[in-house]
């Protein structure tokens, strides 16, 4: 008996000692994959980009030591990115590399920095302004970006609203038809990269009817734009007579779309319902949970469970991962908050197998465990929240976290 107590006591001591070093949550991956933490404690790391030489760029939504962009570089090729460069005095989300430039966004401006032959930033303190004055009303203000093969720039301009009610998020306030927000937000705008100092009017509204298309990537296999959109909030809280607590947690779907020029995804009039596989009219516009709406709007490729917040999209074009991953989509889910009082969901990276630009099978969770707990009942307890994705030259992928400022590199080890 005494022995047992002693052993238990020793185990407890051990436990305390073991628990001392910085908490690292185990990331679960399919067999053959492994992950490695390549950055940590940088706060709100939003989107990320990896250059051809392996440099990792991170866009921060809160300045760290006065800087909003961090670059990590492995100078001596030992697999550790020990060299840090910090620049940019603005916060934001978007970052991408295209045709000799690093692009980064604040919530209203798209900047770019010339890269020299050695992939160094020519003038880190004097970026060019590509587009300025984009709408920034705090809500859904993150400007994520991508590029097509011709070098055109695509930017998500999120709608500063839940469902375009007369009074935003006010119970009982009716929806506006037509929704005036769609004129300068709630869609994807296309800009030329041959000009600088542009404003919204220099761009083209490429696609509309999107509440907040935070995940955005160009699919080079089929030469089309793909996006992931955050669905509306508060179906249960405002319409308990139509949506009970469970349905309000599962609906509306988070969505993954293939988008062609001129397409409309239907916000604010409808939401996607992945149980009925229909575009359901929102109650603010006369919906009852069954009535369909927006007949001219396109349907998504996939409807995911509600509120999980698809913050980043990456169409995989690498050769490192097994063949099934080629041309498929990785989606980083930030994790929900308004499923309350149901447990929160998300906090993982999902994979959608695709070929010729369309899904070939059901989506699956690819990388899990970021929250460090199950279930997550209170959002602030979650350890990490996946927010950005990038692909390295060697075909590894990177996942960023805007809770504790981590970046993981995920590789396949054959």
């Amino acid at each position: 008996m005494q022995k047992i107590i002693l052993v238990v006591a020793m185990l407890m001591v051990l436990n305390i000692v073991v628990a001392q070093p910085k908490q690292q949550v185990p990331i679960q991956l399919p067999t053959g994959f492994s992950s490695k933490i390549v950055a940590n404690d940088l706060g709100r790391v939003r989107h990320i980009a990896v250059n051809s030489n392996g440099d990792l760029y991170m866009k921060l939504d809160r300045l760290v030591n006065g800087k909003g962009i961090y670059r990590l570089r492995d100078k001596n090729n030992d697999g550790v990115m020990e060299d840090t460069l910090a620049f940019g005095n603005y916060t934001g989300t978007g970052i991408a590399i295209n045709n000799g430039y690093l692009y980064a966004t604040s919530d209203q401006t798209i900047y770019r920095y010339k890269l020299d032959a050695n992939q160094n930033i020519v003038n880190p303190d004097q970026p060019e302004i590509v587009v300025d004055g984009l709408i920034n009303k705090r809500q859904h203000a993150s400007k994520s970006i991508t590029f097509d093969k011709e070098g055109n720039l695509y930017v998500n301009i999120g709608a500063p609203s839940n469902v375009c009610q007369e009074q935003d998020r006010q119970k009982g306030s009716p929806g506006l038809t037509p929704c005036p927000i769609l004129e300068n937000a709630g869609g994807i705008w296309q800009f030329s990269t041959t000009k600088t100092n542009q404003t919204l009017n220099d761009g083209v509204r490429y696609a509309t009817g999107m509440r907040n298309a935070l995940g955005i990537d160009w699919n080079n296999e089929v030469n089309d734009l793909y996006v992931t959109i955050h669905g509306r909030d508060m179906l249960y809280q405002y319409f308990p007579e139509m949506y009970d607590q469970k349905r309000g947690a599962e609906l509306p779907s988070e969505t993954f779309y293939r988008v062609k020029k001129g397409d409309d995804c239907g916000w604010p009039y409808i939401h996607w319902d992945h149980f009925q596989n229909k575009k359901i009219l929102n109650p603010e516009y006369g919906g009852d949970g069954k009535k369909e709406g927006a007949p001219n709007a396109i349907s998504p490729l996939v409807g995911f469970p509600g509120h999980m917040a698809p913050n980043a999209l990456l169409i995989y074009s690498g050769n490192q991962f097994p063949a099934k991953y080629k041309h498929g989509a990785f989606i980083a889910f930030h994790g929900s908050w308004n499923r309350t009082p149901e447990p929160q969901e998300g906090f993982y990276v999902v994979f959608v197998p695709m070929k010729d630009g369309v899904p070939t099978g059901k989506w699956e969770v690819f990388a899990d465990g970021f929250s460090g707990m199950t279930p997550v009942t209170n959002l602030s307890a979650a350890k990490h929240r996946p927010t950005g994705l990038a692909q390295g030259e060697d075909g590894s992928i990177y996942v960023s976290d805007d809770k504790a400022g981590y970046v993981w590199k995920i590789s396949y080890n054959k």
Partner: protein
Amino acid sequence: MRLKVVIIIIGLIFLSVGAFAQKSTQSKSKLMLNGKKVYDMYCQACHQADGNGVPRLNPPLAGTVYVTGSKTRLIDIVLNGLTDPLEINGEEYNNPMAAHSFLTDQQIADVLTYIRNSFGNKAGVVTTAEVKKQRAKK
């Protein structure tokens, strides 16, 4: 004249004794229970069950001066909502706080009493009379 004043004073004493009695029968735990009901339905989605909110989007209600400080300011937040960013414990939050004037005076009093005495907060109750007075000022 004198008599009138005396009557009024007696009346006031009566009233306040009545209010006292009411308060002790409708004990604080009842207020808290009713307040939690309102909280769960209308506030919890954004501010979360533990009152710690959602980083970047919705502020905590635990340990903020807006919750435990001035009652009139607190009542106004629920009645009118907020659109200009507040700095809350050094952070700003990007969602708007919707107006909740559709709640009754009683519901607002209950929910504010609840948040002022939950999540580690300890502050006085909010009464329906206080809510009614603020609403009339609009």
